[in-house]
């Protein structure tokens, strides 16, 4: 190799030598990714902040600087305030359901048993199938006339055949439907990560706990839970981000209706920014997703550091 380099001349030889140095090579390998992300996430993020201070619209492309006018307007807008509350409600309730259900399923699925593959496949379906498609299936699931869910409720004599609930047409039921679908699609993901958390506990710990006489719930509370907590919390943080910033489920199921009772930050930003063409105001609305991101980011950093210490 050395002779070849010498024959080719000193320039390529020197280049090759430089490329062999660790720091240079690392920078060379990482920089395309950093540039790509800076251009497609960093620039739009800064632009989103800038647009929120302008009156940019579909008609006037650049828009004029209007200071805090957009923020002042949306903070007095009852629909926007509603959307903040609905987003919080949807996220917290659905994720609480997810933690409980996924925790149970994960403990059931973690051991080997007959039929585990099939059950795991069925439980994972909601997450593996594209949510933007399956949520359309839920439109049919909740159809006012032909809802199969109502069919079960009627058969079980929970509701009468003449006063079947119109799931997506009444405010409280619409919210419940959206929360159900969000939980439905996040449970499999949380289950999978929880299982990883449980299996990461070494067998010796289990044995030691058994020798010390810890069993059942006590063992779970004092031994298993603390050990699987870091990974489980990552799953929860993910679930929070994905649910709070999701637009597909509310957009397709209700598009914010009825009477804005399920309007989310995301759907309202879309309605304002794209449908009504008020890009500046839409950008201001969507910026209210940032606090959620900040909380989750801090949580992730905290756990990344802690996991390393141990």
């Amino acid at each position, binding site marked *: 190799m050395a002779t070849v380099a010498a024959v080719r001349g000193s320039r390529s030889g020197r280049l090759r030598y430089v490329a062999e140095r660790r720091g240079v090579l690392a920078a060379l390998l990482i920089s395309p990714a950093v540039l790509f992300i800076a251009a*497609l996430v960093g620039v739009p993020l800064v632009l989103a902040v800038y647009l929120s201070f302008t009156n940019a619209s579909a008609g006037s492309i650049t828009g004029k600087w209007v200071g805090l006018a957009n923020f002042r307007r949306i903070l007095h807008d009852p629909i926007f305030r509603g959307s903040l509350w609905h987003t919080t409600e949807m996220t917290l309730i659905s994720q609480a359901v997810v933690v409980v259900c996924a925790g149970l399923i994960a403990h059931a*699925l973690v051991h080997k048993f007959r039929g585990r593959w099939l059950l795991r496949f069925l439980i994972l379906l909601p997450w593996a199938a594209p949510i933007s498609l399956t949520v359309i299936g839920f439109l049919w699931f909740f159809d006012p006339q032909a809802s199969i869910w109502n069919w079960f409720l009627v058969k079980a004599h929970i509701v009468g055949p003449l006063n079947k609930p119109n799931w997506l047409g009444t405010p409280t039921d619409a919210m419940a439907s959206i929360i159900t679908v969000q939980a439905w699609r996040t449970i499999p993901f949380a289950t999978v990560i929880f299982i990883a958390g449980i299996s990461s506990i070494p067998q010796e710990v289990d044995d030691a706990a058994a020798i010390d006489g810890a069993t059942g719930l006590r063992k779970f509370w004092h031994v298993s839970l603390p050990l699987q907590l870091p990974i489980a919390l990552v799953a929860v943080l993910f679930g929070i981000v994905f649910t709070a910033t999701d637009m597909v489920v509310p957009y397709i199921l209700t598009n914010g209706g009825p009477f804005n009772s399920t309007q989310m930050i995301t759907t309202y930003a879309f309605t304002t920014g794209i449908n009504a063409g008020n890009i500046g105001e839409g950008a201001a609305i969507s*910026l209210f997703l940032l606090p959620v991101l900040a909380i989750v980011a801090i949580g*992730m950093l905290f756990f990344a550091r802690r996991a390393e210490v141990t």
Partner: protein
Amino acid sequence: MALRRNVFTYGIAVPFAILLAFPFVWMFVTSLKPEAQVYDPTKTWRFHPTLASYSFLFHHTDYVRWLENSAFVGVLVVLITLAVALPAGYALARLSGRVGRTLGVGIFLTYLVPPTLLFLPLSRLIAQYLHLSDRLWALVVVYPSFTIPFAIWLLMGFFKTIPQELEDAALVDGCSRIGSLFRIVFPISIPGILTVVIFTFSLVINEFVYAITFISSAANRTLPVGVPTDLIRGDLFNWPGIMGAILIPSIPLALVYNAFLNRFIAGFTGGAFR
């Protein structure tokens, strides 16, 4: 003890499996119904199954076109993602110390910045500067913004499991660092790389917000946007057709997903928590 455990396992897993998978069962049943009977309360479960709605889907709608569009965007995005994320994931896995860790977590955090926050400014950039409105290329350009961080994270997890000694041996034998990357590291990582391919592809099939913002004509739509917007005739939803349209991509994707799930978990939890 074993009996109690079995009762717990099946008592939890079976009801949840039924609950979570039932929507798919109902979609399948509906997709086989004659369109005229979907609202007939006497035909809820008993009817003459027909494949008419599948044939309608393939012959009288743009469905095949949307499949092609999604596949086109998917393949290009996977290629771009691999080209950028493979080297970066490797370098971040090998960079020890503060810099590597901070960069790794930093890149990953950008994956959490959602499309719902970026679609408005990006719609400006796409229309004004890139002139890609209503073109699939707009999606090809934008989608790597979330697939690359995701792929880097997974790949970091995989590369960390490859022992450094293997590469050192190659260096001793006269291989260059770049050479050892292509001859040693990438070939052993093929299962991990395949996992990234599958999950990247599935992210692309899933994407809705950008696709509905940037694409406006029926022929250029991708699957998740075409199905809810264009399978409606007048105010009438063709429900059996829509159910078929959902199931056709979902079931194969779910099977592949399951096959690669364990690797996904290994990469996902190994990225920074190792």
